[in-house]
């Protein structure tokens, strides 16, 4: 595996090979004495997350989740104290390479954790593939990260966009829906989710009658809702996030479609039940997590999180928490010696993460292989109805690893 990759995991191998990337400063760390010192030194973790703008709350949830995982290990990972470096990525892809460079080159972090926005993830991928820095992505679902761009140092603890809708095909089939309409924003994330649903649904013999797109990030859904009414599909599948999700649910209800044409979606559609009010009631979604998942691990996690941060955790907090767990698994295996990257990656690859969402493992492209739950909004809660797809793995198209 990863044979063809140019990027080495072991820095000593690196130097022997005479590869140019390692700079003069890095060389000092690589001497035997340097390694000893490095184990003493604090582990440098770079958090590249949105601190401003629409996605700021997601950034916060991820940070909290990550820190909870660290706190559960006595504030240390692999026996090492931690020093955090943070960069606000502003959810601006144009600045992404530069921002991640701050962590990699300026702060010389051992691990990068980030981020929410898919476009920013794409920008990070470019830089981190070249630098070979260990990267754990706790959210952004861009398929390419664990697809065409995949790399041994890339890990994701969240989902690929494809995963969040693929299982819906089976769900719709089981409900007897023969055709459906997919509605989302015209942007890469939306299109990937549409693709995932289409594949899953067509495999079950269903027909995706129409793909409806709204220019990003507009929230005037009226025209498309009218179009849906005139098409009269058996079901509607939607993906919207941020300000869009709440408005979509409300407009769907106000247009009188709710109750007439059943609404499904990737779980993000119903992640803000407080603001959505009763417009979300009864909507069924698939996601790798549900607040009400009644397992020991989840209950313990929710309690600890609420205690520590005076907030209810959400799926983003879980993903951040698991990023901490995954990193811990790697560091434990090498006893905190991040220099031994190949061993660390090996350990992370084979880790079985005991997550609040249920146990999961990594695919060979380093994306979670996880259960997708079918959830239904009841009251203010995403009630888990069952597992829609057991151990769903992203097809990782284009990953040559």
């Amino acid at each position, binding site marked *: 595996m990863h044979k063809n990759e140019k990027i080495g995991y072991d820095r000593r191998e690196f130097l022997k090979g005479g590869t140019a990337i390692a700079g003069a400063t890095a060389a000092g760390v690589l001497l035997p004495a340097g390694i000893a010192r490095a184990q003493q030194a604090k582990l440098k973790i770079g958090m590249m997350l949105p601190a401003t703008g629409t996605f700021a*709350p997601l950034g916060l949830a991820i940070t909290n989740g990550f820190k909870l995982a660290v706190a559960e290990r006595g504030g240390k990972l692999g026996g090492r104290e931690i020093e955090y470096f943070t960069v606000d990525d502003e959810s601006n892809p144009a600045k992404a390479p530069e921002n991640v460079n701050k962590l990699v080159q300026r702060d010389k972090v051992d691990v990068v954790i980030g981020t929410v926005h898919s476009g920013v993830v794409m920008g990070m991928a470019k830089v981190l593939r070249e630098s070979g820095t260990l990267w754990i992505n706790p959210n952004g679902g861009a398929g390419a990260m664990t697809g065409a761009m995949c790399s041994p140092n890339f890990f994701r603890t969240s989902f690929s966009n494809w995963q969040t809708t693929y299982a819906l095909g089976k769900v719709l089939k089981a409900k007897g829906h023969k055709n459906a309409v997919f509605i989302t924003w015209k942007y890469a994330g939306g299109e990937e989710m549409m693709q995932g649903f289409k594949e899953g649904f067509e495999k079950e013999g269903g027909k995706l009658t129409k793909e409806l797109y709204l220019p990003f990030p507009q929230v*005037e859904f009226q025209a498309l809702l*009218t179009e849906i009414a005139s098409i009269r599909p058996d079901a509607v599948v939607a993906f919207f996030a941020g*300000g869009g999700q709440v408005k979509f649910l*409300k407009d769907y209800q106000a247009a009188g479609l709710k109750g007439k044409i059943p609404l499904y979606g990737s779980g993000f559609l119903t992640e803000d039940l407080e603001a959505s009010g009763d417009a979300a009631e009864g909507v069924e979604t698939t996601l790798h997590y549900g607040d009400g998942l009644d397992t020991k691990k989840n209950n313990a996690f929710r309690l600890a999180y609420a205690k520590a941060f005076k907030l209810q955790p959400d799926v983003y907090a879980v993903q951040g928490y698991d990023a901490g767990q995954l990193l811990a698994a790697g560091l434990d295996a090498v006893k905190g010696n991040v220099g031994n990257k190949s061993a660390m990656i090996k350990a992370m690859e084979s880790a079985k993460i005991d997550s609040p969402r249920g146990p999961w493992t990594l695919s060979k492209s380093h994306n979670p292989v996880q259960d997708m739950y079918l959830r239904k909004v009841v009251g203010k809660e995403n009630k888990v109805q069952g597992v829609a797809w057991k151990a769903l793995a992203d097809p990782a198209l284009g990953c040559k690893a």
Partner: protein
Amino acid sequence: MDFAFFLIQLLNGLQYGLLLFLVASGLTLVFGIMGIINLAHGSFYMVGAYLAWSLSSLTGSLTAAILLAIPLTVILGMGLERLLFRHLYQRDHLYQVLLTYGLILVFEELRSLIWGDDVHGVAVPALLNASIPLTDNLSYPVYRLAISGVCLLLAAGLYFLIQKTRLGMMIRAGASNREMVQSLGIDIKLIYTLVFALGIALAAFAGMINAPLSSVFPNMGSQVLIICFVVVVIGGIGSVKGAMAASLMIGLAETFGQVLVPEVAGMIVYVLMAVVLVWRPEGLFGRG
């Protein structure tokens, strides 16, 4: 698309247009009368929406929230005019762009500090919380109709204010000749303060009344800003009539664009704007 749905889409387009008018009207006034290019107009829209949310969760009524918030925004507008904008009337548009760009950042951060970064829903007033069935599976929310009504009233009110009242006469005179108005003994400074406060109150009011439909969320201002600029420029700067015509035009173009040519829906309004300006560089109702 059968004929009934065509009619419904027409209605959708017109109502979306009216909604746009609500936000754009304040912008065009400040633009046209004071010659101020206000990029922060969208921020006032956002402030209005957040005020509606926070005050309505405090009082439990959107109507009460709006009644409380309007004076607040008027005061905000007057204060900002005195403190900041007054210094820029004689200067190039460039500095107005600069100042108001800075203002966007400041408002966005203050919003984050005061209200946080979460998305919030605002309840539709119970009285208007119903839908009118249009077809067997589609109905129209009464609240949308109510907003359209408010927009029309507002348009009529603005028209009356500017064309028929003494204040409107002074405003019009002030827009065309500052010195003349001053020589007539009218306090032009006061007029500008009033117009600016009116413009801001209109933007904020649009945010408030639209909050139940759009929900409130960070950066909601910049989403609406650009499209409103397009409205104002197509309609002709300073023309309330033009803003109305352009709003409806854009409402229809976007509505039918999304349904008929979804591939290029995102650029349709900008193409429209470019075409209009190449044909009539001063906008549809602009003074040439």
